[in-house]
């Protein structure tokens, strides 16, 4: 135990460890806040779908040799989010099918583009990194961290400011718009914020594991609490804890960051489920 602590203190001296921890915790917080709404709106897989779209855009950006791939990736992902969340019930292609098409399509095209035009010698490694976020969180620069801090603060502020409106459109969209809440506007805000959080989260856990950040904290909180407010607060707290614990464990044990965080999320989910079941008896 003492040795682990020593190791941790030693690692703490490196800025990249502190950066990783800060970014990890912030992204987890944002993902969990949105997750409650997305899960309840039956959009659990939007994290997965959008992150694949972001992966495709990233591949195209790297082939085009853009100085910064952020604007292109962000733009494409936001557009897709608006389309998927905004298409709603009346569109010809139903939500889940549209999402699956985007997700698989972007993944395939992204990989194809990378394969055909790649400038890097280690293609498999590149793909693996974007999909699983293997190391990028440990190579964050100071400006990355500040960008993440500002975006997260914005997401949290927006969430608090629109909390009651988000509840209204999550619980019953048609009632909300019938009685004078501009559900379309708030759905649009939700879509944009979701896209931003997902692009941020790609650095942390990579494309494939983002869904876990969105879904697990919300599902765990729903086992234990029965008010929307309690579920939201607990899932945010739990998510922060899981991200911090996951990063610390991955540093100590040398395991991949994304996969470790998700494993911690799974363990806490099982715990919450058990406690929830026991509490009901």
């Amino acid at each position, binding site marked *: 135990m003492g040795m682990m602590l020593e190791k941790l203190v030693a690692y703490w001296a490196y800025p990249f460890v502190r950066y990783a921890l800060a970014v990890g915790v912030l992204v987890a917080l944002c993902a969990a806040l949105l997750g409650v709404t997305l899960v*309840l*709106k*039956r959009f659990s897989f939007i994290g997965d779908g959008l992150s694949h779209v972001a992966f495709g855009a990233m591949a195209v950006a790297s082939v085009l040799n853009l100085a910064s791939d952020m604007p292109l990736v962000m733009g494409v992902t936001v557009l897709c989010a608006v389309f998927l969340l905004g298409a709603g019930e*009346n569109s010809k292609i139903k939500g889940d099918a549209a999402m699956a098409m985007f997700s698989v399509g972007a993944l395939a095209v992204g990989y194809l583009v990378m394969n055909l035009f790649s400038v890097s010698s280690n293609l498999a490694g590149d793909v693996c990194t974007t999909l699983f976020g293997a190391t990028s969180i440990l190579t964050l620069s100071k400006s990355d961290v500040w960008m993440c801090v500002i975006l997260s603060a914005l997401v949290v502020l927006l969430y*608090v*400011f*629109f*909390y*009651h*409106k988000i*509840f*209204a459109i999550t*619980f*019953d969209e*048609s*009632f*909300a*718009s*019938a*009685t*004078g*809440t501009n559900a379309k506007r708030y759905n649009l805000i939700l879509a944009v914020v979701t896209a931003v959080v997902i692009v941020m989260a790609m650095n942390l856990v990579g494309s494939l594991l983002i869904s876990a950040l969105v879904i697990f904290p919300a599902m765990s*909180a*729903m086992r234990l*609490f*029965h*008010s*929307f*407010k*309690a*579920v939201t607060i607990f899932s945010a707290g739990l998510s922060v804890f899981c991200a911090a614990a996951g990063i610390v464990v991955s540093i100590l044990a040398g395991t991949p960051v994304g996969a470790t965080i998700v494993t911690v999320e799974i363990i806490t989910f099982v715990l919450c489920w058990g406690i929830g079941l026991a509490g009901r008896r």
Partner: protein
Amino acid sequence: MIQINCQGLALGYDAALVRGLNFSVSAGDYLCILGENGSGKSTLMKTILGLQSPLEGRVSWGEGVKAQEIGYLPQQTQAQRDFPATVWEVTLSGCQGKCGLRPFYNKTEKEKARLSLRRMDMEHFADRCYRELSGGQQQRVLLARALCAASKILLLDEPVSGLDPAACRDMYEMIDSLNKKDGMTILMISHDMEAALHYASHILYLGEQVFFGTCKEFVRSVPGRRYLKQKGEPYGNDA
């Protein structure tokens, strides 16, 4: 005093389900909307609420009524059945339309939510979880939420579907008392012929032949007689 006036409405998505729909609703009316599945009942309600625009014609509001001042009880969605929210959170969300951009509810709105819950006899359930209530209790909560949004007109989309007979009767009595005691105008989609003829003052029947009029007129009308015969209700014979 006319509150809702619909003229020459044609409803539907790509093809019209109904054409040439003319009717008006006055303050204190209790209008039941009947018709087979797919005849455009829910579409009509969404059009009145402004959730969907009509293919032709228009919906106009009487003096002193705004489109946003009507309460609405939609059909329950699957997502709501396991939604983690307290009765209080659900009821209060009925006031959201009045908030505009203001992020939190004010005292008046909280008081309104409390009174609505009391009117529905659900005040002592305020801290309970919505998903753990019985179907009838859930409908009462949603009715309380609708009351938060408005005090003049209520639109109800099949308010008793999925309820057991006792809860059904209870719900009808509650709606009737809102109509008689609080003077609220009621528009209700229903499949329940017997209850419609018992409680409603007017009937709107959507089908091949559209009918609008009082209950008595409906029983004597051609679509009314056919409908009653199909349903095997006793009213068909003595009309």
